[in-house]
């Protein structure tokens, strides 16, 4: 007698089960197929081409009415299964019950809805089935704006489809880069660049606070306070296994319906298959493993032994023109090695992860032709030792691509500015070289490039090399570190001329040879980016040395020092009392009066930092930045308030300068001094910037040193008024911030570019001075604030240990 088989859900997985079953044993079962959707199985993967208009629903149907009829499947489409009665072996649908001998649960997944206000408004859709797709197509017909929440596979396919249908699309993504589960930062950067290239706006680290609207969606409100107008909101933040009928039937369910390797649930007559299952803690979200599972289920139903084994997976994104591939495992593992290849001119990035003598992961962008070959090596666990050195070039290697350190410069467009001082672009230089200027001197003479501050010399030389090839002998310049062949100066110029606004952009466009830099280049890049793009670039604390990340100096025993600001070296009895109280309360072992006219509390435990800062904040004190490559102290003398020789209010000017400049990041630390007369009690003439007051005004000196080197300041100019002095000093700071190499104090930088070059921009050219002051102020709108207060508010928990396992359990 025929057995009765009931299948719940007509999707990708159960479709395969039915194919195997009816092919192998057409007469074995009486089959009833329920589906909540009012249709049979179609290729769900191809919904994106339907959304974008590249395909129609008709094109993607995999099993039509004729197929079900021919295989004798009773279809109950548009009917949800309400419950399973395991005792009486019945499935109860909305229109009545059906008895079963064997049951297959194949209910797939349900989209995850983030629980924000407004999530139920009309116009908010998910992306799972044909109805969702139709709803999006209908919404797009009216044009307007769409906000897609979620920058994973589904979200991006939805975004690309909606953009192709003419909507203005913004993607909100919680994490730092797109598709972070499948891609690393570098590939995520390239993907973002390509999507932005087709008009899609991408916002990362963007958390949704609410969806706004009266009768239907009108806008999305972000945690940052920003609102984005929206006629359509697509939620694509993830999926969760659809397990309701299984849970109600008291089958074992964890995150998904639990199955064994035969795909049987805790009831051996009930199988489960597809995205609704969980096996050994694993969930499945791509079709490849589901097809394997389907075979195992069919064999199980027919009494043939078979087991399902989870394998490595590969991901591609079905957005035409975004060529990405990722496979294998980037998480956990022992003894791993990376091989990175980047070709900035062609927008290619490839990274292989090797463990021992096997390839275990691969990410690539731009050229994924070799993806399947790498995937094969990963799946088969092929030994790769023999071909390790050439592996990254793929199977077709043997004399293929080679890594060219000059490719970043070769890739620059002709209009990219090489020499900032004289406004000379690449095209002009290449033209001069082609016209016979075959050495640096000749290029300089003809184009003026590298003729002023000289920091672009390296780039001009590289252009000579790119254009002339072996006819030009490259002088060896010192690269930043082992991750690149470019010098600091080259990188600074390229960040500006190519408008690189993230570290991932620098790594990719300038051909970094490591996945994410090292402890030498990362702090430098972080500074260059925040100095050049204060509003766009988000400071990365993880690219900072501990002192700047924790806003305190680390000591040899791992404790920290805490040094509040004393503006211009001034303090009050109340401040001194608060410092004394803090020293007592936190058992500070050492209190030292520093060379910078303030008080240092040394030996504070890391976990006490937020508390001691909060106490000092309450007494009106802020961070002294004694740890930063930034403004340190402004040392002053007592000046006209008390001193019989003073000519100007040196204390007052010092305080004004410190309040104006504090919080700003600089290539290296910057210290100022303001003395009231040439007796110079504030030692202003050996500071990075020093002011000596005289009867006629203010003598401004720069580029002094009194650390490892000793050097008197050089006279920048003389100012008539305090305001003029402040503007001159601000402009000098900004010029230093925009141009110096990371870790060059001002005296080293000025020695390279020349004081005359500095004077031209800061003193002589009033327009340039004003522009420098403006740019400094823009940056200060972000950075002129107390990091201690901010950490006490937002980051206090990271100072505490994550767990304490030395305590015995309470029970």
């Amino acid at each position, binding site marked *: 007698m025929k057995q009765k088989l009931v299948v719940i859900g007509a999707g990708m997985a159960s479709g395969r089960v039915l194919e195997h079953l009816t092919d192998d044993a057409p007469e074995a079962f009486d089959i009833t197929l329920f589906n909540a959707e009012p249709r049979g199985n179609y290729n769900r993967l191809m919904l994106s081409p339907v959304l974008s208009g590249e395909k129609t629903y008709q094109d993607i149907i995999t099993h039509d009415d004729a197929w079900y009829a021919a295989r004798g499947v009773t279809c109950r489409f548009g009917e949800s299964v309400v419950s399973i009665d395991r005792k009486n072996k019945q499935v109860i649908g909305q229109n009545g019950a059906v008895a079963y001998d064997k049951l297959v649960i194949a209910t797939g997944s349900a989209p995850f809805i983030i629980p924000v206000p407004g999530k139920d408004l009309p116009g908010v859709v998910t992306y799972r089935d044909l109805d969702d797709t139709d709803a999006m197509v209908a919404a797009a017909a009216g044009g307007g704006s769409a906000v897609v929440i979620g920058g994973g596979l589904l979200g991006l396919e939805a975004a690309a489809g909606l953009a192709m249908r003419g909507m203005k699309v913004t993607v909100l993504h919680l994490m*730092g880069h797109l598709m972070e589960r499948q891609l690393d*930062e570098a590939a995520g950067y390239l993907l973002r660049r390509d999507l932005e290239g087709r008009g899609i706006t991408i916002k990362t680290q963007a958390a949704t606070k609410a969806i706004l609207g009266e009768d239907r969606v009108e806008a999305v409100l972000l945690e940052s306070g920003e609102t984005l107008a929206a006629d359509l909101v697509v939620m694509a933040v993830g999926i969760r296994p659809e397990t309701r009928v299984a849970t109600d039937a008291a089958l074992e369910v964890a995150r998904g319906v639990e199955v064994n390797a035969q795909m049987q649930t805790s009831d051996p007559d009930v199988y489960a298959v597809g995205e609704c299952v969980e096996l050994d803690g694993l969930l499945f979200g791509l079709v490849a493993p589901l097809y394997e599972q389907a075979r195992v289920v069919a064999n199980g139903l027919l009494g043939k032994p078979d087991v399902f084994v989870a394998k490595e997976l590969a991901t591609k994104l079905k957005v035409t023109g975004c060529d990405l591939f990722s496979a294998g495992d980037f*998480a956990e593992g022992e003894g791993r090695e990376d091989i990175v290849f980047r070709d900035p001119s062609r927008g290619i990035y490839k990274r292989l992860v090797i463990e021992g003598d096997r390839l275990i992961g691969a990410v690539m962008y731009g050229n994924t032709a070799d993806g399947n070959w790498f995937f094969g090596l990963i799946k088969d666990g092929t030994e790769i030792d023999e071909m390790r050195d050439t592996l990254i070039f793929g199977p077709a290697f043997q004399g293929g691509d080679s890594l060219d350190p000059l490719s970043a410069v070769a890739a620059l467009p002709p209009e990219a500015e090489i020499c900032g001082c004289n406004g000379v672009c690449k095209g002009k230089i290449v033209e001069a070289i082609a016209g016979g200027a075959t050495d640096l001197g000749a290029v300089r003479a003809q184009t003026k490039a590298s003729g002023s501050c000289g920091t672009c010399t390296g780039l001009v030389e590289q252009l000579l090399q790119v254009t002339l090839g072996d006819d030009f002998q490259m002088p060896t310049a010192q690269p930043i570190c082992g991750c690149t062949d470019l010098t600091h100066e080259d990188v600074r110029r390229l960040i500006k001329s190519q408008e690189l606004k993230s570290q991932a952009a620098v790594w990719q466009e300038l051909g970094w040879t490591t996945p*994410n830099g090292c*402890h030498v280049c990362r702090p430098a890049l972080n500074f260059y980016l925040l100095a050049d793009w204060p509003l766009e670039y988000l400071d990365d604390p*993880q690219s900072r040395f*501990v002192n700047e990340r924790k806003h305190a100096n680390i000591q040899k*025993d791992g404790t920290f020092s805490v040094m509040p600001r004393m503006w211009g070296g001034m303090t009050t009895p109340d401040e001194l009392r608060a410092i004394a109280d803090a020293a007592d309360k936190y058992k500070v072992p050492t209190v030292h009066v520093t060379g910078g006219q303030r008080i240092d509390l040394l030996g504070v435990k890391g976990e006490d930092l937020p508390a001691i800062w909060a106490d000092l904040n309450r007494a009106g004190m802020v961070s002294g930045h004694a740890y930063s490559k930034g403004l340190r102290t402004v040392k002053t003398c007592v000046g006209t308030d008390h001193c019989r020789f003073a000519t100007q209010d040196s204390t007052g000017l010092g305080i004004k300068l410190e309040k104006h400049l504090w919080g700003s990041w600089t290539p290296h630390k910057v210290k100022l001094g303001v003395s009231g007369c040439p007796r110079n009690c504030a030692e202003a003439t050996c500071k990075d910037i020093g002011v000596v007051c005289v009867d006629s005004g203010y003598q401004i000196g720069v580029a002094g040193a009194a650390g490892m080197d000793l050097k008197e300041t050089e006279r920048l100019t003389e100012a008539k008024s305090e305001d003029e002095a402040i503007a001159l000093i601000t402009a000098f700071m900004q010029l230093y911030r925009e141009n110096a190499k990371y870790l060059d104090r001002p005296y080293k930088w000025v020695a390279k570019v020349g004081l005359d070059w500095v004077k031209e921009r800061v003193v002589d050219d009033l327009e340039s001075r004003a522009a420098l002051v403006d740019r400094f102020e823009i940056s200060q709108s972000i950075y002129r604030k107390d990091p201690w207060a901010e950490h006490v508010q937002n980051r206090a928990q990271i100072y505490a240990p*994550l*767990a304490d396992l030395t305590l015995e359990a309470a029970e």
Partner: protein
Amino acid sequence: MNWLDIAAIDDIPLRGARVIKTPLGCVALFRTAMAEVFAVSDRCPHKGGPLSEGIVHGQRVTCPLHNWVFDLNTGQAQGADEGQIATYPVRVEGGRVLLDTVALGKKSAA
């Protein structure tokens, strides 16, 4: 082995670390840019620098005191420096970080 749920992976900053106190001393839980997690001793064998405060790059960390670099997989010092830090078993499951308390010298809590 006795796996103990310590924290959510998001409690550890990307390319950063957090410390846990154990009977064997402080152990640093590192999270790399690819969201892998490693558990190693927080004490640099050179002069005791707190490695959790170092810069994380690739699967390595640079000690904040004198720039020794350690491979987080093996615990080996890189380059010319010689030394090794202890490494401990760690697992990430469903976004949670699990540590083996036996390896960390704690008697089974049960």
